[in-house]
């Protein structure tokens, strides 16, 4: 049966195949958005010791109404208010649509669509299972570069919304957002470049395949997920911070800081247009989560175990082979679960961290993350060269070993250099510059 479907699919014209791939992917990221919204509200409320939405979908029958006798006075609750997003959607679409009179109308209505475009387009290179004819939508050579390029278009939606609303708060939000996105794109690119260097390819499918290789190049039954390597872990942390900043989420939600800018760039947006912005935000979160999972956490693999190797070389081969089959057929569920875990991480972060100040945001991006990502990139290059040279001169195992020792030594040297620099000029550590506020003396104010 599966073989027949595969045969039928592969005989379709290329364009139709690509279209089917795209539709599957869009459904994959679009359908769960209500679930994400519900989960955000619910998880956030639990973290804040509240109950959260729990009413929508509950039905209580009156004791004297026309309901059948066995239903009278009974009440039914739907699972933890999971229908709440449906009610939110109906509310948003049936509300009065307000638009400011003095706005640049064309750009004002264009902005939400522009915001949604990159959210849907970024994911085209992310593989959600090992079936190469179904996923990813386009397995292009430029891979990661495509993701960075399209995510850099995400700033347009915010900037245009901020500009066209003809509102000072919106404009400030748009400006903040463009500065933030431009700053954090660089660190994100550098952290991904390190992994691209280690993999030797920009394709995400190649990255997943490389992560299925032996652990540290030596232990064959464990997969070498990038996050287990020292440089991969650092790159992952940098990517994680950058992706939160790129999606304008707390603690990097300065463009929509409600205590300063009302709602930032989307202050003047209501009903459906606002829903589009929200949708773009959630889809973006999910996509960046899945990219991070794909590049650093082994993609659609559930556990970092090489089932095929175990099936061939370990006792109890049939069990391992069966687990391998489960992994093969349920890869998409694993992938979704991992993406969902990343969304939960976003929510956790929102519940935990206070918002950054603007100067902290900039110094974190430029003075901490970018140098760290650049040094990380150099260490990867060093590791590659040393491993390759030592493999040639003194065998595979020695080469791998020396390579990892060099990485650890380089890390130690960099840390010592950092401490020395900090000892020389303690004031310039960068992250938490103390900032004093000069209060204006009311007496002087009166005379001046």
């Amino acid at each position, binding site marked *: 049966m599966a073989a027949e479907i595969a045969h039928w699919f592969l005989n379709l014209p290329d364009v139709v195949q690509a279209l089917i791939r795209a539709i599957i992917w869009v459904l994959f990221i679009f359908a769960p958005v209500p679930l994400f919204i519900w989960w955000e509200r619910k998880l956030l409320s639990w973290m804040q010791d509240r109950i959260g939405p729990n009413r929508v979908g509950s039905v209580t029958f009156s004791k004297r109404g026309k309901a059948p006798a066995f239903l009278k006075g009974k009440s039914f609750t739907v699972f933890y208010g999971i229908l709440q997003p449906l009610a939110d959607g109906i509310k948003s679409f049936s509300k009065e649509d307000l638009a400011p009179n003095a706005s640049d109308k*064309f*750009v004002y209505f264009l902005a939400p669509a522009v915001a949604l475009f990159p959210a849907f387009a970024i994911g085209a290179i992310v593989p959600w299972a090992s079936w190469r004819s179904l996923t990813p939508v386009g397995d292009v*050579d430029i891979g990661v*570069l495509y993701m960075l390029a*399209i995510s*850099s278009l995400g700033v347009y939606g915010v900037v245009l919304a*901020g500009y066209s609303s003809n509102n000072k708060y919106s404009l400030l939000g748009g*400006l903040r957002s463009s500065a933030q996105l431009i700053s954090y794109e660089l660190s994100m690119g550098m952290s991904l470049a390190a992994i691209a260097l280690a993999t030797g390819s920009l394709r995400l499918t190649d990255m997943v395949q490389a992560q299925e290789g032996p652990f540290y190049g030596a232990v064959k039954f464990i997969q070498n997920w990038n996050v287990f390597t020292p440089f991969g872990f650092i790159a992952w942390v940098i990517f994680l911070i950058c992706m939160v900043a790129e999606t304008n989420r707390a603690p990097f939600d300065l463009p929509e800081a409600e205590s300063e800018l009302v709602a930032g760039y989307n202050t003047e947006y209501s009903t459906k247009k606002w829903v589009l912005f929200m949708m773009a935000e959630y889809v973006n979160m999910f996509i960046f989560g899945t990219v991070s999972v794909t590049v650093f956490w082994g993609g659609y693999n559930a556990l970092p175990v090489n089932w095929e190797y175990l099936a061939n070389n370990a006792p109890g081969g049939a069990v391992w082979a069966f687990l391998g089959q489960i992994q093969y057929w349920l890869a998409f569920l694993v992938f979704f679960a991992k993406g969902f875990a990343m969304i939960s991480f976003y929510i956790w972060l929102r519940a935990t961290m206070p918002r950054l100040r603007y100067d902290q945001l900039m110094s974190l991006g430029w003075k901490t993350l970018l140098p760290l990502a650049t040094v990380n990139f150099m260490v990867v290059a060093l590791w590659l060269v040393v491993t390759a040279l030592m493999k040639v001169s003194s065998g595979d195992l020695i080469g791998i070993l020396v390579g990892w020792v060099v990485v650890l030594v380089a890390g130690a040297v960099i840390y010592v250099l950092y401490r020395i620099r900090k000892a020389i000029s303690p004031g310039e550590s960068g992250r938490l510059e103390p900032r004093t506020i000069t209060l204006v003396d009311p007496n002087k104010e009166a005379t001046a």
Partner: protein
Amino acid sequence: MITPEFVLFGILAAVGVAASVGVVAFNSAIRSALCLVLNFFVLAVLYFTLNAQFLGITQVVVYTGAIMVLFLFVIMLLNIGAEHFLNEKFDYKRIVGLAAGVLLFLMVGSQLLPALQSFNHVSALGDYGTPQAIGHTLFTEYVIPFECISVLLLVGVVGSILLAKRKM
């Protein structure tokens, strides 16, 4: 002979030309800038259709994603509105300019079109435009110019910091 590639090219080219006309035709600075964004984006897609993936994505990263964002940033910051007074009086220079433009178009077109008519294959062969091929060429054949340019860019970065930061 109309192939799907030809139709695709026609659509993209039409959008690109319309966008570049919009850049000069709109009075409002922000709309001109948006047209330029669209033009750059369509140009990138054209590169993709010609199999030049790396060039196309660089176009998006550099022009659409970085430079034009800065353009918009500046336009928004200065809040440049539409310049209405430019349209008010008739100017004979417009007609002369238009005629010169048409003349230039005819001259360039008469030279280019006959040469281009013999082309049937509209995309580069094989892995011509992949990052691997470009990286290999850059780091073997053109390694010295490449390194020179990177040093030049570094000098540019340092220089701009020096200019922007009053006290070091």
